[in-house]
Each structure stands twice: as structure tokens, then as C-alpha cells.
């Protein structure tokens, strides 16, 4: 019955989250009731099993990687994420509003800026967090997305070609800046945003 705990979310916390993530008050309360409904153990945190219980996420080919994004500390199975961490990760997917583009340039970059969205996508590839997408890492993600339907050789050549096109400094891997360059024509704001009706 989830959201009885919405009364446990204090106003000050909502304000803090609002400042940090930019979500509106009603969006935060709604996401909090979603958080509590996913939290089967009722201890205020989510584990990986809680995420995997969502069928639509479990069948997503990149489901595991997305879940990883919520647990930045490591790949330890005992990881838990609390509501603040949950919101911080979700904040990457907030649509960029027009009035934010003209904000104070000295303020720190919002979580849902184009760069941060790209960084999120980059981290989906870069499993070992060495700020480089190696050929192996690229192959891994490709294999996750196509399953058994494409042969190793074909997949290998796809990976080689992608690296060839993106790599500029010749180290046979894709750094974050090279990644940004490759995607400069892509409408990242639209592809990496979730939309609410309010």
C-alpha cells in the first residue's frame, strides 16, 4: 500500500531534493510513493532485487546496466540505494526546460544537462570506470542488445568500425570527449528524457 509513507517525507527534504534535482513538488511525492511501493523490505532503501522485480525492466536487454547506474559505489550485491540516491539518478532524465538554459552560468551544472546525460550513457558502456570504452566493453553491450541473433564476426566488425569512426587519438578506445563528438548531432535531450503530463 506504499504511499502511507509519503507522510514520512518531510517538507525540508522535499525542498532539498527539489533544489538538487529540479523535480517539482508533486513529482517528488509521486516518485516517493513509487519508491516505497518498490521497497518490499520496507527499510527505506532499494536493492537490486527490488528493481529486478519490475518485469518490464527485467526484460530490457540493458536492464542490468541501468540498475547498476543506481548503485555507483560498486558491483557488490549488498548495495542499497536510498531515496536521495534514487532521485539523483532519475534526475538525469528530467527534460531540459527552456528557462534553465539561461540560468546563472556560475551555478553548478544541473544533473540533467546535456553533458550529464551523455555521461550517463557513457557509463552504461564503460563498466570498469576507466573513462574509456574499450573494444571489449563495446562488444559486451552490443551482445546484450542483440542476443544470439548476430554472429561474433559480424558483431566484431561492427565494433571495429564504430571505434574507428569515433577514435581520434588512436588508442583504440573511445574516451568521453570522443563520445561527445560522435553524438554531437544527436538530440540527446529528447532521447534521454522521461516526460510527465504535469
Amino acid at each position, binding site marked *: *500500500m506504499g504511499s502511507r509513507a509519503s507522510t514520512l517525507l518531510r517538507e525540508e527534504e522535499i525542498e532539498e531534493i527539489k533544489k538538487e534535482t529540479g523535480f517539482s*513538488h508533486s513529482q517528488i*511525492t509521486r516518485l516517493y510513493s513509487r519508491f516505497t511501493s518498490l521497497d518490499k523490505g520496507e527499510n527505506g532503501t532499494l536493492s537490486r532485487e527490488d528493481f529486478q522485480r519490475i518485469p518490464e525492466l527485467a526484460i530490457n536487454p540493458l536492464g542490468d546496466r541501468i540498475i547498476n547506474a543506481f548503485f555507483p559505489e560498486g558491483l557488490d550485491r549488498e548495495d542499497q540505494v536510498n531515496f536521495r540516491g534514487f532521485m539523483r539518478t532519475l534526475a538525469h532524465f528530467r527534460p531540459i526546460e527552456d528557462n534553465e538554459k539561461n540560468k546563472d552560468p556560475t551555478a553548478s551544472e544541473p544533473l540533467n544537462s546535456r553533458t550529464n546525460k551523455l555521461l550517463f550513457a557513457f557509463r552504461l558502456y564503460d563498466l570498469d570506470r576507466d573513462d574509456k570504452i574499450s573494444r571489449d566493453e563495446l562488444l559486451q553491450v552490443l551482445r546484450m542488445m542483440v*542476443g544470439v541473433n548476430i554472429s561474433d564476426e559480424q558483431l566484431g566488425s561492427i565494433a571495429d568500425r564504430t571505434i574507428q569512426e569515433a577514435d581520434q587519438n588512436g588508442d583504440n578506445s573511445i574516451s568521453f570527449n570522443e563520445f561527445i563528438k560522435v553524438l554531437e548531432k544527436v538530440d540527446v535531450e529528447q532521447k534521454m528524457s522521461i516526460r510527465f503530463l504535469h
Partner: protein
Amino acid sequence: MGWLLPFDNLLCMALGISFTVWFTSLLVFIIVPAILGVSFGIRKLYMNSLLKIFEVSSSHIVSACSEKDKVTLIMSTLEQEIQELRSSSTTLSSEPEFEMADIMSFCRRGVESIVDDEVTKRFSAEELESWNLLTRSNYNFRHISLRLSVLWGLGLLIRYSFLLPLRITLAATGIGLLVVLTTIVGFLPSGRYKIHMMCYRICVRALTAIITYHNSENKPKNGGICVANHTTPIDVIILANDGCYSMVGQVHGGLIGVVQRAMVKSSPHIWFERSEVKDRHLVAKMLSNHVADKTNHPILIFPEGTCINNTSVMMFKKGSFEIGCTVYPVAIKYDPRFGDAFWNSGKFGMVSYLLRMMSSWAIVCSVWYLPPVNREEGEDAVQFANRVKAAIARQGGLVDLLWDGGLKRGKVKDTFREEQQKLYSKVLVGDQEDQAEDRPLEFSTLRPEEDEETGRLDRQGEEQPLDSLRLREDCCLRLQGNYTLRPPTEEKEKKEEGDRLGGPSEARPQEHCPLRPET
């Protein structure tokens, strides 16, 4: 001590009178009408006055908190995403076109499903638009005003001190009568069914269930199967109140076992031993035998297999649709304002659930009898099941989902993920097969019991796995027509290729979903 006596007498008299009055009024106003099948209309009056109170209180709530906006997520569908991917590729070369931005579609869909998904919310109580003065449904409605709290307190008093004892008494009477009378009548040849009806009527009053039956001309007839959407065990009482059915289920111990044995004495029901439930051949055979005899009552089956929260209809298991007799669909929709009827079996046991039911305001529901259907030529059991499900969902105003209700407890099968991977591979490598591009995607209706079956279900019986789209009516209609089965050879080829490449292990765990046959 002598001065106590007059008080003693007084007390006895007062109690004695009140007990007699209590019992007599119970008898006159509730039990006798139940036996005779008439109604004073007290429940309808009660319902209407409750509605008025809710209206008053909801206007109060609206004026108090102006910010009651619903935040709804706009979910994208897999088809939309795939279209986007295709439109962005400008060349029609046979070379695989991969872009690093492709992961963004999957990523976004994943995050959307984290924020809101179609399945997990079906297994918990529905959220209400406006508070109905029950603590249990008090979500975002914190303390609003004194008047409302007083009203709530009054309601609490009435519900727990008056309604609850009344209902428990009635329920006990009803069940007691059922057991006693069916045992007696079991020795006599005729008049069996009237006993059942009478006892169900008492039980209905015990729950203060206000039921409206629509389209009674379509009521299930003998020798058929009645299917309905499942929300709570009380569904049985609600349907049996208006007609005689044969129940199907597992033999339980305890009180329920006693009731089951009593019911069998006066009319045939199909109760299985726990060990027999898994044996689908046996189950199917017994059902067929039952419907073959045209004097038997229609069998009541809930094909979802588990309780869903009455906002949607989930996958119908095809077992009951293979028997080959007439199917009578019934749609049941509860009004959530008066009490949430959904049985969240993970959270509440049967007894606490019944207590909650008896301490709600009432159970108000509508039952629609839909026109009987038969399996058509060239339609297999799954298509038939989906057709019936769509009709029920449409009538009851429920969302038609193709997800399996067993996901309440079990994990989803890997085949669905493989289907998504296949779709994406097509985008990469181009459409090499001759399948139509707009082929509607369909869910596999595999369940672990079927996996274990040998011989009965060969590969041809399987459907293609579907996408997890929330179906709207037009999609349902499409399903009936453009429907292709994957030929058996393709499956084998895929398997061999997988083995050759040493790709992701083919371990499709057969015991993936630990479904319980009865919930």
C-alpha cells in the same frame, strides 16, 4: 450486598431485552428475507446515504488542498522506439548500421519502467481519487480538517462496534446453516440447490454486498464454463448468489475443507487433491467429463489464476479454453469507494482479509453477463482466451494486459527479452526475413506447467513472444486477425546457432516462475 440486587435485575433485564431485540431484528430484517429471497432495500439506502457523505467530504478535501494534480508518466512503446531508430538511418545498405546512441532508447524505456510500469501496480490496492474515510486508504490525504476527522472517527465507531459484529454473526449463521442443511439435504433427493442459494444470500448480507447484475439473459447455462476476472475469493459468493455453479479448486484443510465437503454432498463440485493439481491432463479430463453431462451446473473458473486488483485483466490461462464447450464470460467490477475488495495475499491472510472486508463500508459491485462464446474455426485456445479477455476488459472498463498474473510471485521469462533483442537485431542487420513489419507482437503464454509437459504441447502450440505493450482496443482487434505462428524449424535453427556461437547460455530455467496453482 443487598443493594446490588435491584441493579442486578435491572442489568439482566436490560441485557436480556437488548439481546432479544437484537436477535429478533436480525432475524426479521436480514435472515428471513435472505431465506425467502426478498429484499427490504436497506442496503441500497445505506449505499446512497454513504455516497452523499462521500460527496460532502470530497468537496471538503478539494477545497482544502488545491494542489492535487496527478503526475502521469508518458510511456513510450517499443514500436515507437524502433521506428525512431529506423528513421534516423538514412542508408538502406545491407551493412549493419550501429550507432552509439542506440542504447539511449533502451535506457529511456528502462528508466520509464522504473518510474511507472504496468504490472507491479496491479498487485496492490488501487489508489483512490478522493478519500473514503477509511484509514487504510489514507494516502496523501493527511490531516485536512477537524470536521473530516470527526466524521472519520464516527465512521470508525460505527464500523467496528456495530457493523463488524453484525456481519460476523451473519457470516457464522450463514456458514453454519450451509453445513447443517447440506448435510441433511444430502440424504434427500431434491431441493438441493435452494439451500446453496439461501446460504449465499445470507453471506452476501454478511458482507453488505450490494450487487447489480446486468444482462441476466446471458446467465451461464448447464454444461458450460463460466469465466470471470478474479479480484478476491468473494467473487465466488457474488456470482453464486445469482445462480448455481460448480466450483473447481484444491482441497483445503480446516474450516474451508469442511465447507467444501458439505458443498459436495448436495451438488457435484470438482475438488482436487494437492498432488493432482499439477497434472493438467487429469484436470482437463475431469472438466470435460463434467461439462459433457448436460445436467451439471456450469463450472466457475478464474483463468487468471491469481487475484488482481480490479484495475486490469491479466493473461488468461488457456486450460479452460481448450475443453471445447461454450464459454460464458462474466465481468466483475468493484466500486472502490466503499472498500477495497482486492485480496493482497502476500500481505494479508484470509482471516485478516475477511475482517477488513467486514469492517469496510460495503462491497458494491457490478456484474455483467456477456453473451456466450464458442471457439471459432482456425482459432486456437490462446487466441480464444485473449478474445474472451478483451471482451471482459472492455465491459468492465479494465485495462487489458497480456502479462501473466503469475508475475506477482515469479520472475519473468527470458523469452521476452530475447524477443526485444531480435527486434533490435533486425534494425541493425536489416529486415532479412519476410515477416511483415507491422506484425503485431504477442506475448508467449508459456507457463512452467507447459514447459514440463511432454507430447501434449509441441512447439507448434507456442505463440510468439509479445512485446509488453499496454493494449488498447484496436490492438486487441488486430490480434485476432494478423497472427502467425513461428514454424517449428525456425526454433531449432536458432537453438543450433546459439550452440555454435557459444553465445549466451541457453539455460531457460524451466522452473523459473514458482507459480502456485491456486491463490
